[in-house]
């Protein structure tokens, strides 16, 4: 190795020294995610009617390679339906510890109800807190369980630690993330 090579390497170092840093000081600053990032699931609703898209068919549970999803179906009250048609998901649970965020549930869903969103900040203390129900995943619920708990304790609104470049995917109907 000659002096020339050392000088070349040092030149690269010197060049980078004067560039703007790429490190984001998360969580004070928001991390930038691509729209296709696969994070916490969102259960979407039909625009307009506001009915849940999920019909409780359990196909996501069948497709799940990690057996993370549990669905129990119920029958809609015709006067006050949860979803279009006769069937809806009475219980819809995803164990976020088991989930490997592969997105097969989204592919299996015949109605486009379960969509992988971009949220990823779900670190929590107790095992049962990682089993997310409908009340944690329906569209409109912002933030994960620990985030919402903390926000409620502080009396603030949930602050998501990321932004999505170009906004969320069109499949995430009704979901807004910081841009």
């Amino acid at each position, binding site marked *: 190795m000659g002096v020339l090579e050392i000088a070349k390497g040092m030149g690269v170092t010197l060049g980078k020294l004067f560039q703007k840093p790429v490190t984001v000081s998360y969580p004070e600053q928001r991390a930038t995610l691509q729209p296709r990032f696969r994070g916490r699931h969102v259960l979407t609703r039909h625009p307009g009617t506001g009915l849940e898209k999920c019909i409780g068919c359990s196909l996501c549970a069948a497709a799940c390679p990690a057996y993370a999803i549990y669905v129990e*179906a119920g029958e809609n009250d*015709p006067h006050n339906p949860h979803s279009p*048609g*006769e069937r809806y998901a009475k219980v819809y649970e995803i164990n976020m510890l088991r989930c490997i965020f592969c997105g097969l549930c989204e592919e299996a869903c015949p109605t486009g109800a379960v969509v992988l969103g971009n949220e990823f900040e779900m670190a929590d203390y107790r095992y049962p807190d990682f089993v997310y129900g409908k009340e944690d995943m329906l569209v409109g619920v912002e933030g994960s369980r620990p985030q919402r708990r903390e926000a409620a304790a502080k009396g603030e609104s949930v602050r998501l630690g990321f932004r999505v470049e170009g906004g969320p995917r069109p499949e995430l109907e009704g979901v807004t993330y910081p841009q």
Partner: protein
Amino acid sequence: MKVTVDGTEVDLPSGTSAIDAVFAAGGDVPYFCAHPYLSPVGACRMCLVESGSPRKGQDGHFELDETGQPKIFYFPKPMAACTMLATEGMHIKTAKTSPVVAKSQAGMMEFHLINHPLDCPTCDKGGACELQDRAFEYGYGASRFGFDRRHADKHYPLSDFIILDQERCIHCKRCVRYFEEVPGQEVLDFIERGGHTFIDTQEGGLPTGFQGNIADVCPVGALLDNVARFRGRNWEYDHTPTTCTLCPVGCAITVDARNGRLERIVGRENREVNEQWICDAGRFGHVFAREGRLTSPLIRDGGQLRGASWDEAIQAMKNGLYGTSPADIALFINSDSTLEEGAAVQALAGQLGTGHVDHWPRYPVAVSSTATLTDVASADAVVVLGADLGEEAPVVELRILEALRGGIIPNEFTHGTAIADLRLVERPARKPERLAVIGQPSRLWKHAGIRADVGGHNPLLKLANPDSDELRAALTLLGRAEKPVLILGADVLNQASGSFAASLSDMAQRTGAKFLAIAAGANSSGLAALKLVPQPGQLNFSQLPQARAAFISRLDPRVRAAGFTIVHDTHLTETAKLADVVLPAVTNYEKRGTTVNLEGRFLALQQAALSAGDSADLIRTLTILAEALGVRPQVRGLKSAQGVLETALGFSVQGLPERGEIRPLAGAAGNGATTGQVYKPQLWKEHMLDKGWHTTWAERTESLGAGEWELPMAAQPRHAPGGDD
């Protein structure tokens, strides 16, 4: 008879249908309308095959082709295999070798799917649907019919138990044929024609008894089990093949559980017992296995029952039984307990030296039947004596009706029961003159040619000494018949006195009839063979209040013993509320064991995956009782119970064939003992009824009539439709 299917030659008995020839040769054709126990009608046109036969010329010899082989003259078009008789030398080509057949089957599938809605994700049949499977195997995968699907009534309750979706119906007519041919009830039919055809009933509901079977026969999700509605998808259930123990017939059932809860029961085939059919009580009366279960022992503390651990319960039993002689403890069990449990009771009673052992319900006599259910179905004369079969053994009623429509039992092949037995015909001619019913009026009454109401008298004695024209006609019927069968029900067996065995064998000898005695409980015949009846001088079940101490398993006499009372039950019954210690029991769906049905057939029970807390079966509970009494029990588990059983019966009950086996029960007939009470059979028990049934659906259908509740498809859409069409 030699038939060639796709180049494979098979040897078959004459009378075989072409569809069975294909399956016997290991081939496959799709079919929706054919069903082993129903008449073949060729309604769905899916089983199309190319077929042809050799032809004889004018010289009486087969016409030969250029290679010297008999020339095969094919039909010009594909033929429905289920309604075609296979003939000597016939050649059949299925979709495997014939592109014409493959194209016509795919085309038929396209027709079937014109109006079939794409709601498989919400349909309870999804995953176990013949249409789904066959469309995948034989369909094009796409449709050229782009127009709107027909809309009809969706989720419209035909009864509390059955829900109809007219859009999904593919008009195979299995349900219509089932009702006409099997229980002989004309309730369902096609209404309108062509593309407008729909299934409905004008009767305002379905007849109770056997309506649930139409959910099993429906090849699509048009007729579904309303009790198991939306409980789980078919691939999510744990399927357990077991035996139903609600009545002594012992029908083959599959118990479907999900997450430790019993959600659904479907019929399973056992050619020799229930063929394919089960009764509504067996299918829908399972709510008790799921709701209100006892999950831990209860002990009486300061006058009140409170939850406790098993250790506390053992201590309570130890304290309560202190000073009681073990020989004074009465052991009373339900007669649907398994043979293994019976052996455990017998062994423990022997060790304790108690003779106060009984099972209930039972009759004062134990009769070993000489007829099998197949004998009933193929009999040319059936005389029912004092039985209300709808309450005692419903499936026997179906087997009797089978005898009335000619007693044709579908043939069996290596691939199973014949898919289309051409001897079965639609709207069969029935022969009511072959059936005589003597006793109280019952559901079977309307099918019988000879009916005699004998009031409260013993029907058997009345038949032996006829004093009316009907009774004389019944006796003549028995005398003339070649294979007559006598069916003995509760009214005969309750009144059985000392001379009963003599008068029965006299009647059997006089007429040459075989007899089938309908036992009181699911395993009464087996438990009687184990001598689980009180000897003279010992207490029977009706004398429970006199017992100094008692252990009662899954019985609800609503009284307690004079002394310490232990109740082992699945629910907090009235008796359990009176007890000193209540131990949680498991239902028969959660047991492994053996039961003996009314024919003397040994049938296996399997354990379904249900969760029931700390509940224990009878064998385990008896070892705990023994521990509380300071006795080392001889039977400590299923294996040792089977060992005791082998000694008692002389053969092993392990490794029974799937359809059970009739084995002689030595000495069973001798083991009678007075019962002290009359057993009145009742199929539906209080705990089997779901409180919701007769309110929600009945209210809904009533308000439907009043125009309050709209059927969703008839209603104006309140919301813009979302998702798929």
